[in-house]
């Protein structure tokens, strides 16, 4: 599945609805559906804010596909989500969430993303920033 959208925050709720239904359909537990949805929402928000500087008309592409890994001798199914934008290259050093010991606004988005997903990888390919998020189903959940 693929979604193409512009960097207008009004689309965030549409994407959340889509991701929530998708993860439910794939058999993720409800709490994980919420956390994966939150991770995608925070990642999109970061693109809008930091990659595109709050411009509303810039392109974002999202690809959803199945993923697999071997874990404890068994094949584990999962969902891979790739978010692509054409903003300036991101300094990987800036992709660290802040310490949760600080009580201040901001810096929580990356923390939510890392808490929710098994894999969080950022790469730059040509003019495109690519954020790859993967979440695997626990053993026994094989709706994928």
């Amino acid at each position, binding site marked *: 599945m693929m979604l193409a959208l512009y960097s207008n925050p*009004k689309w965030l*709720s549409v994407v959340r609805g889509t991701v929530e239904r998708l993860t439910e359909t794939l058999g993720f537990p409800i709490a994980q559906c919420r956390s994966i949805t*939150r991770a995608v929402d925070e990642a999109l928000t970061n693109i*809008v804010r930091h990659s595109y500087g709050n411009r509303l008309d810039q392109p974002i592409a999202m690809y959803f596909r199945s993923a697999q890994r071997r874990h404890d001798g068994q094949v584990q199914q999962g969902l891979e989500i790739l978010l692509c934008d054409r903003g300036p290259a991101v300094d990987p050093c800036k992709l660290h969430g802040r310490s*949760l010991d600080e009580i201040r606004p901001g810096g929580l*988005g990356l923390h939510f993303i890392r808490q929710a997903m098994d894999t969080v990888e950022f790469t730059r390919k040509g003019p495109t920033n690519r954020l790859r998020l993967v979440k695997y189903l626990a053993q026994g959940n094989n709706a994928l």
Partner: protein
Amino acid sequence: MQISVRRNDKTTIFDFSGDIDFASSPVVRDSVLREIRESHTPRVAVNLSQVRYIDSSGVASLVEGLKASRDLGSRFILFGLSRPAREVLQLSRLIKVFEIYDNEEQAMDS
């Protein structure tokens, strides 16, 4: 996201409902900060019972409200946390930073 405001002489209650995300959190932030800084209300309470989703920018708005209240010596209270709101405050380890009550009655009696 919808906001309604109730006021009496010592307390202002904000009832937020729906999704607080990057699109709507600036309104939350501005409403809360204006009440604290300009109206100088001694107690600002935020009802989160009808909040279906809150992202990190929404949490940041609440933290700003808390800090502004502390700076001015007023109180900033959350009550009736919906499951999504509670989950996010727990994830961010801010659940113990805020003054939180189960419902409006408890919040008003505090």
